[in-house]
């Protein structure tokens, strides 16, 4: 998994590429750390280029949401397709993290 963060006026956009699974937990934690170091009011995870997400990946999304609640910024997801979109719908995260 790779990611790029763009922050435009406190509105962060994280563009993911690759799979988001357990093995990416270190990278994801680093991402959370990177975000926490920025002053933002919202952050959107762009999942357009993500092919696969497992339950650990979804768990990491929820940890990110906890961090957002704590730091008072809003987390959203967008661009999910195919399997990723189905997983978000199955777990109702698509509603929880709707833009």
């Amino acid at each position, binding site marked *: 998994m790779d990611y790029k963060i763009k922050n435009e006026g406190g509105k962060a956009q994280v563009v993911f590429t690759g799979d988001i699974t*357990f093995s990416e937990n270190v990278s994801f934690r680093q991402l959370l750390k990177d975000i926490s170091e920025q002053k933002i009011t919202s952050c959107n995870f762009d999942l357009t280029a993500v092919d696969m997400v*497992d339950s650990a990946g979804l*768990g990491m999304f*929820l940890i990110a949401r906890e961090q957002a609640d704590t730091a008072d910024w809003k987390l959203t997801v967008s661009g999910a397709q195919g399997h990723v979109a*189905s997983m978000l719908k*199955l*777990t109702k995260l698509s509603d929880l993290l709707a833009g």
Partner: protein
Amino acid sequence: MMALASDLNIQSLAAGAGTVEGREEILSKALERWLEMHHVMGRGFFTLDREIQIVAKLVETSTDDLNALFLQLVDNAQNQSAGMGEIVRAASLVKLGDETLSLQEIITYLEEVFSEGIMNVLQLAQTAMSLVYALDDVVVDVKEVVRHIGQIEQINKQTNLLALNAKIEATRAGDAGKGFGVVADEVRQLSKDINELASTLRTRVDAVHNGVNEGHQQLQSIASLDMSGNLKAKDRIENMMTALVTQNEEFQEKLTSSAELSAQLQRDMSSVIMRFQFQDKTQQQLDGVRMTMSVLSGAAHDLAEETYAGSGLEPIEDDSEVMERWVDAVIKKCSLGEMRERFVQGMLLKPGSTTVELKTTISAVGDADDDIEMFDDTNTSVSVVNDTVDDDDDGIELF
């Protein structure tokens, strides 16, 4: 008329027709034929009357039977219609003990249970990832502890070297350095103890590190679930439930249609039962026929009585050849076996006979003993007894 003229044998009598005797002979012969015809017609009326009664009874009995059958059909159609209505209501419901659930409620319940399971998995994954991150922090701390142990060991190593140097210097100082040598030994022993303690700490911290790593792996197996199977299962369950609901709706639609057909059948059969009233009209018409026959028969009887009285002719004892031909002609026209049998019995009645028992063979007609008096003739009296026709109280008296 041609047959009658032939039976009078006019040609053979024609020679004497010009004389009074000849004309009287022709007249006498004609009266004799008329009386013979009266006998044969009487038997014919009698037989026809019996047939009419049998037909009337057959129509009545058959109508009653059909009526009863259709009433039964109406009853069955009502039950069927009610049963189908019950099926329509029950088809969309499932009984669980005292609880009655609709299919939609069951589907909603299953979806809730499934979603709850998925949410539990998600919650578990989140908790597992939180623990993973917590353990990562523990690993960092453990590594820090290990680094500190290394520093302790390094310090201890230098302490030991210092103690060794102090011991050497104390020995070189001789007696003056004896006390300092003892202190140096104590410091070396202390260094040795610290080294053992550090070694023990390193061992324990290594164990913690290994435990954390093992926990990390265990948490990976908990957190990393490929939920594709759940995804497919959810889709399949949703599809099955949708199919079940659709099938149930089609089932209900067909049952409703069938119940409507049963109701229509019930209405049609009720209409058929109403139309069975034709039997009453048929009975009235047949009674009219019998009445007409009775009047004609009575008139012929009166005329025959007058003929006997005026002509002085003797009562007919046996069937003449002419009478037998007429009877044969009637019987030959009967093509129906059982009817023919009754006609044979009725038409072959001897002029001198007083009673004959006619037994019909129509199974649909019930037992009867109506004792209908057919012939009120001094010469020929026929009484039908013990036949299979029901009581006749129509008051129609033939002959």
